[in-house]
């Protein structure tokens, strides 16, 4: 993994401006951020070793304005589809939690734009309101990070974090389970890798089961030693698996390398 130079630019869409961080070269991958907002992570670096990585900011996050009339996850998916069409055409999607929810909507509504999907503990499909983000800070940190030393340092101000939470609510509308999205899952054509942390208490294992059982071409994998923030808790495990999947598609089922001494 090498340190890539990421640059920021603004993309103007009919609904408004989307800011994007981009780095790396290769087949395009769009990384969709969590409800925390866009963050640079070891996974993003690893992806950029092999791909042109784009990290669009969902409108309303990190100081960017909301787009007029855009609320709900389906509408946000339309905005991001327009972004993808304008910047890179067909791409692979990697979505983290809230970003995984968004990636599913993009794949469901705009299948022509999506190659493969990698979902990291996607939100929006918590049946019976199981799991969820604890309100208290310490409990929330424990639920997010099984490896606290790897947690990213939060550089956003309290006000900015509050604004990001408000933007999140604009899209999620407080839903634990998105029935409309669930109805679309069997129609998703993109081959999908679903990643779940073995210690995740925010997104229940049932979400992984639902996705695996509903998306026709899908693979569910547990990341041992990870809580909810998979790409920070176990970046090497997540990165190696995601890259192998993105590079080899269904062939990723077959182990390529051995530890044999040649």
């Amino acid at each position, binding site marked *: 993994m090498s340190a890539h130079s990421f640059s920021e630019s603004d993309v103007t869409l009919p609904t408004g401006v989307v800011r994007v961080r981009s780095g790396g070269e290769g087949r395009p991958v769009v990384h969709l951020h969590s409800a925390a907002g866009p963050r640079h992570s070891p996974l993003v670096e690893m992806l950029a070793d092999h791909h042109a990585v784009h990290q669009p900011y969902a409108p309303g996050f990190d100081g960017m304005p909301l787009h007029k009339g855009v609320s709900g996850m389906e509408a946000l998916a339309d905005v991001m589809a327009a972004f993808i069409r304008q910047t890179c055409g067909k791409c692979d999607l990697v979505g983290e939690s809230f970003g995984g929810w968004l990636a599913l909507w993009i794949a469901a509504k705009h299948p022509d734009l999506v190659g493969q999907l990698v979902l990291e503990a996607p939100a929006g499909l918590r049946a019976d309101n199981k799991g969820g983000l604890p309100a208290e800070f310490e409990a929330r940190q424990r639920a997010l990070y099984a490896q606290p030393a790897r947690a990213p340092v939060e550089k956003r101000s309290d006000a900015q974090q509050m604004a990001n939470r408000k933007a999140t609510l604009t899209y999620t509308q407080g839903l634990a389970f998105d029935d409309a999205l669930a109805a679309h899952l069997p129609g998703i054509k993109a081959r999908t890798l679903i990643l779940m942390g*073995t210690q995740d208490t925010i997104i229940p294992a049932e979400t992984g089961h639902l996705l695996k059982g509903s998306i026709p071409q899908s693979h569910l994998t547990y990341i*041992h030693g990870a809580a909810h923030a998979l790409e920070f808790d176990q970046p090497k495990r997540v990165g190696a698996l995601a890259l192998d999947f993105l590079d080899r598609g269904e062939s990723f089922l*077959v182990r390529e390398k051995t530890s044999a001494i040649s």
Partner: protein
Amino acid sequence: MKFSFFHLMPWTDLDETPSQWPAPNASFDAARGKALYDTYIDTMAYAEQCGFDAVAANEHHFSPYSMMNNCNLIGAALSQRTKSIKLAMLGNLLPLLNPIRVAEEYAMLDVMSGGRLIAGFVRGIPHEYIAYNVPPSESRARMKEALDLILKAWTEPEPFGWEGEFYQHRGISIWPKPMQKPHPRMLLSASNDESAEFVGQYDAMIGMTLIIDLDIAAKTIEVYRKTARAFGRETGPEDVLLGQQTCIAETDQEAREIMRAGLEYFHSKLMRPQQDAQRIVLQKTRFFSDEEQREFFVKRLVVHKSRTLEEQIDAGSVICGSPETVVKQIKRLRKHLGAGHININMKIGTIPDSAVLRGMELFRDRVLPHVADL
């Protein structure tokens, strides 16, 4: 109380003491081996008729100490020879094995036996790591990851993959799945507080053996109970299993004479070859996470070996005597440790199989009626 009948399946014909590990196998006689397997499996199946709740086996490698390098094979044989007795595999040496294979074999055993499996997972004794070429320093981390993986393999409703430190699988979906839901009763072994804390985190019984001091054992069991409580589970007597070398005869004197002869062969011949390998593993690796635990393990073996039979009985590691004496010893263990399950090993070294059978019958007729309702 519950009682298991455990068999180590020792090789009984060593004339010379192997001085090095692994013990040379040139003297192994397959015909004699076949006869021993027949006798041992018959004896284990007979436990069902002697009122035992479970028949138990475990796993050892490269040593005449035990001819059972895969107890699941013995469990499979017993599943066809018995009807209702539980099959306690105590257990598979998890850090040495492919966890998916273990999940599959245990699931087979559970289904074949109609849901009678007690699935034991143990870290094993140090020298076994040389046999399967697994770094001893990784034993605890491998144990945890393998156990987590097996629980997923048993309970997941959808095919899944696994990305861990030691195990990586892209697609798992075992057939069959276990009969017991959500999964078979589990047992994990513990000899110290760190292990007991680990066991308490799972929905599992704790298994202890080679007790050198009842108070120390009681403290370790309390660590297990306290941890389980912290994880939302109350444990009872049935969750604590104690391994006991046992001899029951008509009189105290007869039982002690039989036991002394068996222990002599056990310690001087069967235990000898692994001593060097064990020493190397303990000295040169981090099998134990700190020096205190390493010293405790070594002390436990030394003390056990150096004690007289009477001292071992007093310490709570051996049950030996007439049926009346054995009843008192079992009641003492129950009182001091709150243990509700005793795992009885009667085939110590060269103790004659006829004496083992007689001991099993004395247990059924004159011990069990006085302790079953404890």
